[in-house]
């Protein structure tokens, strides 16, 4: 049983509302921050915590904050609640069940950054969550934690929720800012980074929901206390959204460093593979990160047990490792078809490419097309190498990371499951199936 920071009070009846949240220590961090701390002190605590951005990239939050251009008096904090990386459904959980945690985090973080206006950009499909979040914001206003002269300190902050329109790319921070300005979600060329020129050309920090939701705890307990949790390189806790072929899909808060085997098989977490089947593979950090075959998920290539942390999941680099990413933990059992899954992911990235950069716009479409024919029994001998070639030509050649995100799953799936691709090309009659989850691997000798 690890430490709980975000979900400590999640089971308390009524925690979604202001009163119960407040009774359980809610908004203490705002009181402490605005009355007794300077913005720089808060930034330093977050730096000391070594909190790494929970959206997927894992960039240290405190460092990101320290880049903000303080020479401009108009600065913004924007929360990225555009959660749409396949396999990821953790931010939604915070907003749905404990929305005040995000609101409180927005207030202390805005104060630290010197922002007087902040926006929560939420994907439009979450429209059923808007009333829940708006109610929490209204309650915070009614109790003097938002608006003019917060707690009599002279600090002003307005907080608004903005609706997206349905586009995965808007999870990329500069595309999100474009969208918030009422435009297509086309990522911007960096530099300048948002900390210098962000929303409306003003210094802006964009942080994931989970990162912001951690900041009240850090303000209350200190960055050093946070850094004591988890591992040295991955301090703290992380929400993992577990899905796929497991007994207990859902959102779990784990202390980073938990053994992967325990996370996957213990009843406290995923509860093992559903239907008594065997583990085949796992995408441990959202659809963009490399897929790992079961044996490399549980142990590194060197044979050491893997744990749930940034450094352990990436041990072995892309050859034999993966990434913690967003914490979207997708488990595949023995009847999952890796080829069909890859075709599905390729189709996703093709659909979601904004179209600005030709390697991504065209390349994702080519990969989808080639994977479609392999999966449907019309693959050619050279197709597997062709896929690897296309992926290589996308990777690193685009403005934003969507290109990389589309390329990595292809390269890793072929690296680890080449046999399955070869079978689809050479002996389609042996691997005929209709769905993602009804694949039966033929015994290799028949092939």
């Amino acid at each position, binding site marked *: 049983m690890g430490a709980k920071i975000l979900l400590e009070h999640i089971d308390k009846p009524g925690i979604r509302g202001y009163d119960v949240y407040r009774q359980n220590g809610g908004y203490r961090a705002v009181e402490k921050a605005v009355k007794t701390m300077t913005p720089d002190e808060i930034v330093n605590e977050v730096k000391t915590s070594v909190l790494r951005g929970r959206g997927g990239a894992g960039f240290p939050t405190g460092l990101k904050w320290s880049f903000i251009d303080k020479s401009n008096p108009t600065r913004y904090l924007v929360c990225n609640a555009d959660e749409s990386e396949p*396999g990821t459904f953790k931010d939604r959980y915070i907003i749905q069940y404990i929305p005040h945690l995000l609101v409180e985090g927005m207030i202390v973080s805005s104060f630290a950054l010197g922002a007087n206006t902040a926006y929560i950009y939420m994907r439009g499909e979450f429209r059923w969550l808007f009333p829940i979040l708006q109610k929490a914001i209204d309650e915070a206003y009614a109790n003097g934690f938002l608006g003019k002269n917060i707690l009599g300190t002279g600090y002003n902050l307005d907080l608004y929720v903005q609706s997206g329109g349905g586009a995965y790319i808007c999870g990329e921070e500069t595309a999100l800012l474009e969208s918030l300005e009422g*435009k297509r979600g086309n990522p911007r060329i960096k530099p300048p980074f948002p900390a210098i020129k962000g929303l409306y050309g003003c210094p802006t920090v964009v942080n994931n929901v989970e990162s912001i939701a951690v900041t009240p705890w850090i303000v209350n307990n200190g960055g050093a206390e946070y850094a004591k949790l988890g591992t040295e390189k991955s301090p703290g806790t992380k929400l993992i959204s577990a899905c*796929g072929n497991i007994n207990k899909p859902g959102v779990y808060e784990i202390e980073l460093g938990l053994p992967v085997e325990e996370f996957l098989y213990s009843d406290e977490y995923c509860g093992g593979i559903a239907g008594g089947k065997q583990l085949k593979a796992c995408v441990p950090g959202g659809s963009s990160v490399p897929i790992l075959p079961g044996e490399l998920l549980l142990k590194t290539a060197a044979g050491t047990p893997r744990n749930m942390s940034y450094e352990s999941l990436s041990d072995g680099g892309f050859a034999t490792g993966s990434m913690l990413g967003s914490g979207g933990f997708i488990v595949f059992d023995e009847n*999952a078809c890796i080829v069909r899954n890859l075709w599905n992911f390729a189709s996703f990235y093709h659909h979601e490419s904004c179209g600005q950069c030709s390697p991504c716009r065209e390349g994702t479409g080519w990969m989808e097309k080639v994977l479609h024919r392999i999966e449907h029994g019309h693959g050619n001998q050279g197709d597997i190498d062709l896929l690897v070639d296309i992926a290589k030509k996308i990777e690193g050649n685009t403005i934003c990371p969507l290109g990389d995100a589309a390329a990595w799953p292809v390269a890793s799936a072929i690296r680890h499951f080449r046999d399955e691709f070869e079978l689809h090309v050479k002996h389609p009659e042996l691997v005929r199936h209709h769905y993602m*989850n009804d694949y039966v691997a033929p015994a290799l000798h028949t092939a």
Partner: protein
Amino acid sequence: MSEIKFKPETMAQVEAIIKRYPEGRQKSALLPILHLAQEEFDNWLDVPVMDYVASILSIEPIEVYEVASFYTMYNLKPVGKYVLEFCKTGPCCLVGAEKIQDYIQAKLGIKVGETTADGMFTLKTVECMAACGYGPMMQVGDHYYERLTEEKVDRIFDYFRNTDPSKVYKTDPLTVAGLN
């Protein structure tokens, strides 16, 4: 076609939204206002509707068209009374979404992108809705319908067919019809 104009209460919402942004940045209100427009004008954005939104925000019509065509939630063609937005992304398929999609298509006699002859349902597939642990799933209006089975799909369709349309979005079908 009657005059395209927001109802006064919607217009009040529009004005409140515009106030969230700094002076001269009213274009930021475009996405939220397009959602309101779609809701008010038959669930899709016809060109005159987009032109109307452009006039409210003092921007060029093309600025509205390019946004409306970029984001998947805006319908640029007429749709049925209820749009079934069915998730087709990998994690949902691992737990049987493709089979449920086949079932829906067979049950309604339509393919993805089509509308039933009675104008009741349009079937759309969508990419990941952040419900991966609770798939297969689809969104209809404001609700996520999760852990779909064939039997649950039947009950959902019955609910929509047998409920007074003016009440559908004002009650929570998950509790009313025991759908979850």
